[in-house]
Each structure stands twice: as structure tokens, then as C-alpha cells.
């Protein structure tokens, strides 16, 4: 018995030593995302994007004198409680330099609280709720944009385009969905006051459910000219299918989480064609040389390019972390956070020049109006 215990301890020490030696040649970057769960589609694209980004960096010689970038992926299943657990898992690993986390503002909130407490740099890639950067956190950044810009874009663009006087806004009560709905409402407030538009429907559906016929019938009775849904693609697909089934004919505009290839697949081509979306530029529409290089590598490995912008923001988060580690010469979290905040300005990225404001927001994210065309592709529209 005693001999067995000694043998196991010795084996354990050897393995530890082995990994410690191996770890010296690598820089480990953590990735927290919804690999399973309701947003598995987005999570898996993000994982693949980060793998490609890491590959490209390693092919060019790595960082910090030839060290390879290694990705450590932890699944948060798209749930806030699993997000907290995933964050705990990553902060307890000493070799993880920084974390890319995550998709879904409601999942990011508890996770980023933990990262802040343990002083780990964390960069969100699919988290647009405004209040995430209003907490005076030192270690939280994001490479994606914010809901208030999207709300403003909607107010400036959509009512004019569809000649809409009656607007229905539907959200899903999540941190992101409700945030975007509130920001849109605030952006429309001036027009409402001037009597140009009215918000005839403002309510939330419950995510995770399938049957929305009842709230949709209520929406139909308010006779909107355009319908804005600020939730996620799983519910969006069901909503539009059921809406068309009960006779809602007004144009459907989704927020930037509502429409991707999965939406088109679930809703079916007939229903999805003609749906609109307010969105950051899609990967295929990015004009930068880094984008072209990245997309070519992604397509070569996985067959086609990501169908939503979030995986690209994840890749850019990885790129900016690698850049910060390389240029600052350190893996110390506090120094990295200060470097990212003060000295990252106009760093070339896949989504354009990367820079962070003093609150950790990404500077300068444009918005377009997208439309699903007859072949199911999502294209920019005027």
C-alpha cells in the first residue's frame, strides 16, 4: 500500500515537472465560450477562429522570442452559472496569461466579475451590453461594439428606410437583449416626442421556450410597420416562422445576435428571405488585408468563412493579447491591462485598427443594415 502511494506521488511529480518544462515554451491564452448549449454554433465558430489566429501567429514565429501561442478552451454552455464556473476554472490555472471571454452579455457579467477579482485580463468578443464597461473595471475589455451605437443606428436608419410610423420592439429579458431594446427606445425617444414614430409594442419573450404564438398575436393586433427583435438567433428563427404563420407581414429586423446561418437553416429559406438585421460588418465584408489573410486560412481549414462577426472579434482579441504580450515583454496581468488600455492604438486587426477607450470599449465600430437574399446569403443593403 505504501509503495503504491509512493509510486503514484513520484509519477505525479514527474508529470508536473514535465508540463512545467513544456509550458516554458508556450504562452497560454484562455478562451471561454458557449461550445455547447443554445449558442453552440457561435461558440464553435469562435473556437475555430481563435485556433486559426493562433496558427497564423505561430507560423510567423510566435511571440516573446519564439514562444508558441496555445489556446485553452473552457465551455460555458451559454449559461451565466456555467460562465462563473468556467471563469473560476481559468483563473486557477497559473499558466493562462489572459482570457478571451465570452459570447453573451448575461454570461460575461458573472465571469468578468471573477476575472476582475483575480486580476486576469479578459476581453469580451460577443458582449455588447453597455453596462459591462460602466463598472470601473481595470481588467475587462471588449473588441466588439456596444448596444447604444446599434440603437442609434436603428433610429437613424430603419424608420426612414421602411417609412415606418409604428414600431414594435421585442426583446428577451437578457442582459444583452433588454439592453439593446432600452438603448433603441432611448434613441427613438426624440422622434417619439416629435410625433414622427410611436412604439406600439414593447415586451419580452422568454428565451428557451418554443411557443410564441400568443405574444405574436398580441403584436399582430398592434399593426406595426416594422418589427425589431433584439434577442438571439434561436428564438428569432422560431419567432419569424410563427409570425409569418399567423399573418404578420411587416418587415422583420433583427439585432446583431438574431441572424446568422443557423437562423436561415432553422427558419427555412422561404421564411428567412427578406429578413433584415442591424449588424457590425460581416467577415466577408471586411476590407482589411489581415481579414483577407485570416479568412483564407479559415476557409482552407473549415470549408467556409464564419457567418457572424463575433468569431472574428474573438480572433482579434487573441491577436491583440498576443501583440500586447509581445510588445510589452511581460505576461504580468496588471502590466498587460495597463498596456492594453494606454498603448494599444490603431494596432492592425482583422476587423480594422484596434484601440480601447479608458473604459475598455473598442473604438470605432461601424454598423450596416443586412438583408437575407433569395439564396440565403446575408448581404449588405442600402
Amino acid at each position: 500500500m505504501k509503495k503504491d502511494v509512493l509510486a503514484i506521488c513520484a509519477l505525479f511529480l514527474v508529470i508536473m515537472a514535465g508540463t512545467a518544462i513544456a509550458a516554458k515554451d508556450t504562452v497560454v491564452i484562455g478562451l471561454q465560450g458557449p461550445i455547447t448549449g443554445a449558442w453552440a454554433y457561435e461558440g464553435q465558430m469562435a473556437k475555430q477562429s481563435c485556433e486559426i489566429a493562433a496558427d497564423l501567429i505561430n507560423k510567423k514565429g510566435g511571440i516573446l522570442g519564439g514562444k508558441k501561442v496555445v489556446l485553452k478552451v473552457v465551455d460555458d454552455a451559454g449559461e451565466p452559472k456555467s460562465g462563473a464556473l468556467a471563469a473560476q476554472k481559468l483563473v486557477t490555472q497559473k499558466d493562462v496569461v489572459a482570457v478571451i471571454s465570452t459570447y453573451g452579455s448575461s454570461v460575461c457579467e458573472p465571469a468578468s466579475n471573477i476575472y476582475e477579482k483575480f486580476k486576469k485580463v479578459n476581453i469580451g468578443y460577443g458582449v455588447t451590453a453597455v453596462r459591462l464597461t460602466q463598472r470601473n473595471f481595470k481588467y475587462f475589455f471588449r473588441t466588439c461594439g456596444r448596444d447604444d451605437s446599434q440603437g442609434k443606428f436603428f433610429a437613424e436608419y430603419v424608420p426612414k428606410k421602411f417609412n415606418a410610423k409604428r414600431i414594435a420592439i421585442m426583446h428577451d429579458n437578457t442582459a444583452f437583449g433588454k439592453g439593446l431594446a432600452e438603448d433603441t427606445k432611448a434613441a427613438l425617444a426624440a422622434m417619439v416626442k416629435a410625433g414622427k414614430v410611436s412604439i406600439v409594442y414593447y415586451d419580452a419573450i422568454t428565451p428557451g421556450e418554443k411557443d410564441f404564438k400568443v405574444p405574436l398575436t398580441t403584436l399582430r393586433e398592434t399593426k406595426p410597420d416594422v418589427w425589431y427583435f433584439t434577442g438571439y438567433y434561436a428564438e428569432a428563427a422560431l419567432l419569424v416562422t410563427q409570425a409569418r404563420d399567423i399573418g404578420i407581414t411587416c418587415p422583420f429586423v433583427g439585432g446583431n445576435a438574431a441572424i446568422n446561418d443557423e437562423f436561415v437553416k432553422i427558419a427555412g429559406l422561404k421564411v428567412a428571405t427578406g429578413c433584415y438585421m442591424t449588424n457590425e460588418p460581416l467577415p466577408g465584408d471586411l476590407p482589411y488585408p489581415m481579414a483577407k489573410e485570416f479568412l483564407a486560412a479559415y476557409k482552407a481549414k473549415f470549408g467556409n468563412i464564419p457567418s457572424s462577426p463575433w468569431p472574428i472579434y474573438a480572433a482579434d482579441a487573441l491577436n491583440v493579447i498576443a501583440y500586447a504580450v509581445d510588445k510589452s515583454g511581460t505576461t504580468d496581468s496588471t502590466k498587460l491591462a495597463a498596456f492594453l488600455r494606454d498603448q494599444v492604438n490603431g494596432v492592425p486587426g482583422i476587423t480594422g485598427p484596434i484601440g480601447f477607450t479608458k473604459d475598455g470599449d473598442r473604438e470605432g465600430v461601424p454598423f450596416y443594415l443586412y438583408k437575407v437574399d433569395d439564396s440565403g446569403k446575408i448581404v449588405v443593403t442600402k
Partner: protein
Amino acid sequence: MQVILEQLINGLTIGSFYALIALGYTMVYGVLKLINFAHGDFFTFGSYLGYTVLVFGAAFLTAHFGLWGVLSVALLAAAISIAIVGVIVERLAYRPVYKAGRLPAVVSALGASIFIQNAIMVIWGPRFQAYPSELIPNAHLEIYGINISLLQVIILVMSFLLMGVLYFIVQKTTFGAAVRATAHDRKTAALMGININKVIFFVFTLGPALGAITGVMVGMYYRQISFTMGWNYGLKAFTASVLGGIGNIPGAMVGGLILGVLEMLGAAYISAAWKDVFVFIILILVLIFRPTGLLGEKTAEKV
């Protein structure tokens, strides 16, 4: 007026899904005093099996059986397979722990639920799957000015038929009397010469089979299925069976339909965001004044 009727049909459709799944919960609880947490996952498993039959067998089956034949095959295949799964789960996860008391049984049920859910995720992948559209011709019927789809009619008819058949079996046949007796008092029923194992077998084949059929119907109706959907439906169906009186089979049917209609009322006339709050407040009020549920028997407390 028409809107109210349309909303009522919507409420009844959701309600009949809840009712059919609630039947599985209530039957098992009645006979074994065990809350079968894995039942929601039987429902999901049935839905995925139906999906597999429809997607991979479509060409072969349509050639031999025609459109309605394909649907029947999918429903039967799902029902029979999940009935078998139900019996297996009962033998493996529940029978060994009957003697150990109620807590180990509950833990075993939760474990079975997690196992099945993750097995589904591993087999079919974590992404959503979509049932093929155009299974039922996209016809709409106009009755008194309200617009109902053919699919909704078929689902309502099938649900009420299944509930009627089960009601008949349980209330009007001798075997049904045996089931009710076992639900009332298992030990005495055994002393009276009722074959308890047969009753348990009946409950664990019919309950999951109904769940599986509901799964296929839900797949056809909403078209999107995911491996976690059993959680949501299971929770609502369990609530429905408690509302109607757990252990009581007509209670489960009534509870499910009432839950669906209450959800509809809450969503349509209060607010879609607050509908669950409304439903659960009603549940709490019902339980305060009738702790055994709407149709539950007032069992005298033995002091």
C-alpha cells in the same frame, strides 16, 4: 372575439403538450411515489428519434408508405423505442433503489436525466436540429373566421384522442382499476393479488411512449429541437401535474390544459415577460387552498 378564440386555440395546443408529458410524471409518481426527472429527457429523446427517422428514412419510407405513412412510422418508431428505453431506465436506475427510500430514488432520477441529456448531445451534436418542413401540407382552415393550420388541428385531435384512450383504460377497465389501486396503496394492492410488476411495466412503457409521441409532435409543430428542451417542458409539465393533483391521471390532463390556457392569458393580457410569474402565482394560490391539487383527493391525515 376572433383574437380571443385564436389565442384560446394556441393556449390549448401548448396545454395539450404539457398534458401529455404531465401524464408520464403523474403515472410514475402515483404508482411509485417517485418524481421521474428523466421524463423530460424521454420526451427529447423521442423527438430526436422522430427527427432521425424523418430525415434519414424519408426517401425510402415515402416511396413505400406515402406521406401519412412516414409520419405514422416516425411516431410509432419513437413511441416503441422510448417505451423500451423507459423500461430499461426503470430496471437500471430505479428498481435497485426502491428499497433505499425516496431520496436515493430522486438522485438516481436526476442522474438518469443528466445521462440521457448528454447522450443526446453526444449522438446528435449540441446544435439545434430542424424537422423537415412541409411534412403536413401547409393548409389553413377558416372556422368562424379564425385561422387554424391543418397541423394544429391534427395535433389537437391526436392529443385529445390519446388522452381519451388513456382515460378510458385507467377509469373503465379492470387493469385500470389495478393501476389506480396501486397508486392508492402499493402494499395493500400487492396483498390483494395485483401484479405490481405488471403495473410498473405499464406505467413505464405508456408514460415514456406518450412523451415520445409528444416529442415528435413538438418537433413537427415548432421544427426546432435541441438537447436541452426537455428541461423546460419537463418543468412545466411537472407543474401541470402538481396543479391537477399529482398521482391523478385526469388531474394531469386537466392541469396541463389549464396551465397552457393560463400561460396564454398571462402572455396576452398581462405581459409576455411576466407570464411565468402569473402562472406560478396561480399555482401557489391553488396549492394554498387545495394542497393536493385541483383534482387531488383530500387524504385524511393520520394523527
